């Protein structure tokens, strides 16, 4: 047993930490938040330049061939910085769907460009009957000659505004299928969803959007197992981001408790305040170790890796929300000021809480997996 990072993972971690501290500052986060699309082109370019956009894409397609644990290292650091990039949509979910189900031509054409950061993809899955199962997809794809015509609406899709292409899940005879759709296709429109949201969520309307039969990813009607596999394996990667975010919420809160004085003493000396910070630390560490174990289980093909993945996502969702909640209790008024970075973490924690399944869903999955 050895729970340490390898030397190269530690180097990777240090590199990303430095990059994020330089480029993803509090000021920059605020600018990104206020921008039109919320896309930090500069940070994206920096990540791409050192090969991190394609970290988990196989080397034969221009990626880094990294493991899930490597991805975990990257995502801890992105989460610490609360970096709002389309990396998860493009470099993890869509890249892995293509790796699993794409045709040789699709892989050869798309994966290298995803890895280089030139091409951004987003996964359009969720609809009004919100959920992560293929059978919750209602949007239709109707065959017309050599083409398919897509009709319907996707909601709460991250990164659709900045994506060049979408992988759209649509109902076809015999099941759900995946389609590659250009973002600029006639009939396709993307709208930003406003609210207490981290990053960007979009609504996508597809009104008679026509795609060629070659746009199908994988087998027609065969999307369910692909989605199921890729979503389950990616959940701990997202969990790593949430652990990183919890860690930063912890550090911000701890440092403030050490300097803010009330009644003649730093507030961190009050047991009531300490309780908040201890809650953060415990939630963070619980999520950290369940996430680490889940990533390790995936890399090592452990038969119970799905148990690990659902455990990690449930714990991390709880942890990030818990961490930011208690952070606000300690920061009090200061935490509600827009200039203070904590609100980026707070909104992100709430958004990622349900992304790829909220704890309730993963607990149901765990009950099934534990044969209860």
């Amino acid at each position: 047993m050895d729970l340490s990072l390898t030397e190269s993972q530690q180097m990777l971690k240090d590199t990303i930490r430095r990059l994020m501290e330089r480029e993803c500052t509090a000021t920059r986060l605020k600018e990104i938040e206020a921008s039109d699309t919320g896309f930090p082109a500069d940070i994206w370019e920096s990540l791409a330049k050192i090969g991190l956009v394609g970290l988990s894409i196989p080397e034969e397609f221009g990626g880094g061939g990294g493991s899930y644990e490597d991805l975990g290292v990257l995502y801890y650091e992105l989460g610490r910085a609360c970096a709002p990039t389309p990396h998860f949509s493009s470099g993890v979910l869509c890249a892995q769907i293509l790796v699993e189900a794409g045709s040789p031509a699709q892989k050869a054409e798309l994966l290298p460009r995803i890895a280089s950061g030139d091409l951004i993809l987003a996964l359009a899955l969720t609809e009004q009957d919100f959920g992560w199962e293929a059978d919750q997809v209602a949007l239709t794809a109707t065959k017309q000659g050599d083409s398919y015509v897509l009709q319907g609406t996707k909601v709460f899709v991250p990164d659709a505004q900045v994506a060049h292409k979408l992988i759209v899940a649509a109902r076809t005879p015999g099941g759900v299928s995946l389609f590659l759709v250009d973002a600029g296709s006639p009939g396709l429109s993307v709208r930003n969803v406003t609210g207490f949201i981290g990053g960007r969520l979009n609504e996508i309307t597809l009104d008679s959007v026509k795609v060629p039969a070659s746009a199908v990813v994988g087998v027609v009607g065969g999307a369910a197992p692909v989605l199921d596999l890729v979503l389950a394996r990616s959940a701990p990667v997202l969990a790593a981001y949430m652990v990183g975010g919890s860690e930063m919420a912890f550090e911000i809160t701890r440092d403030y408790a050490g300097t803010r004085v009330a009644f003649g003493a730093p507030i961190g000396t009050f047991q009531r305040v300490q309780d908040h910070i201890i809650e953060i630390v415990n939630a963070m560490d619980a999520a950290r170790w369940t996430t680490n174990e889940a990533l390790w289980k995936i890399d090592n093909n452990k038969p119970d890796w799905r148990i690990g993945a659902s455990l990690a996502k449930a714990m991390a969702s709880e942890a990030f929300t818990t961490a930011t909640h208690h952070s606000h209790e300690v920061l009090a008024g200061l935490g509600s000021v827009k200039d203070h970075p904590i609100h980026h973490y707070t909104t992100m924690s709430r958004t990622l809480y349900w992304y790829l399944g909220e704890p309730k869903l993963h607990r149901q999955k765990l009950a099934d997996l534990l044969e209860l």
Partner: protein
Amino acid sequence: MDFEMHYTEEQEKFRAEVSAWLDVNMPPEAVRPVDEGRKPPGLSDAAMSLRRRLGAKGWLCPLWPKEYGGGDLPVEQAVIIGEELDGRHAFLPYDLGVILIAPAIMVWGTDDQKRRFLPPILSGEILTWQVFTEPEAGTDLASLKLRADKEGDHYVLNGQKTFIGSDYRADWLYTLAVTDQNRPRHSNIGAFIVPANSPGVTISPMELIAGQNKNNIYYDNVRVSRDQLIGGEFDGWKVANSTLELEHGGASRMVEGHFVDLLLAYCRRATRNGQPLSKDPAVRDALVEIWMGAQVERLFNWRNYWMRTSKIPWSWEGCQTALFRKQSEPRVAHRVLDILGPYALTTDPKLQALRGEIENQQRMSIMSHPGGTPEAQKIVMARRIGIAKTRQKASAIV
């Protein structure tokens, strides 16, 4: 990262050796009882015998140097011994010498003391109790009052301790006492190894709701020789903290608890109104919640074990693990009460669940205090996090 122990062929051979040895040397009665407070006849002697035999073999403290009564074995072999004992539900008598006291002696004792005290403790010849708490000094341990007055090359001890030991008689009492009435708190305490048969020591049993039965201990002009003092005359607080560091989760093990697995299996099996309990949606959710907590506790223990055996310095990990366990046990009991109702509360042979394990968990869950209350764990955590008035690093442990 690697979350698994890997065993070489050589080590698997060692496992076979341990297993064969246990076949011969483990008395069949030496198995863990449901409730330590109600031991079946024959268990105590059997457990003592198993302890002595393991000790003689160097397997009671496999990681310790041979010269001190250990086995000089690598971590993997120590884990193998633990796994094999655990697989047989082996039960060893209550003793804090091995896990808590010997490490403090190793850090603070003189060479002569290490030679005198460690081998008997680590080879299982003698039992040692931790004698800290007093009627007026629990969480605020440093306010303890038991006097140790110097008389020539002896100290004379007077006072009372409480909540000590078990119903296995101790040979040695690892006792904290005030060595100077005038010195300030924290620098007025000495740590003594007091032979339990010293004249003036009276041990009188208490009756507790669960677990081992504890004792009151009265010291009436008990004479202790100076060379029984571990560390300096006023170092007792530091010595005690090496012990408390381990007690607060530092002495973690790789071996896992089985309660949750048993509970899940029981709920798959037991039926209510014609269907398995585990099919009730509320029961499922409660079971998953309990199971998730157990995974976190397991991983905290693994992390601590890994940190300790790799000599990685730590901060809040030990007390965090103790706190997590102390907070989760009552929660688990609460949920189990939801799931099983009155069946959770009975030891009636006809009605009990899991041979009384469930009922025992209900009782044990109210006892989160040994080794420091949850609040005490939080106080230490806050210091380690660096926000409390007192900034404190982890105490020296081996």
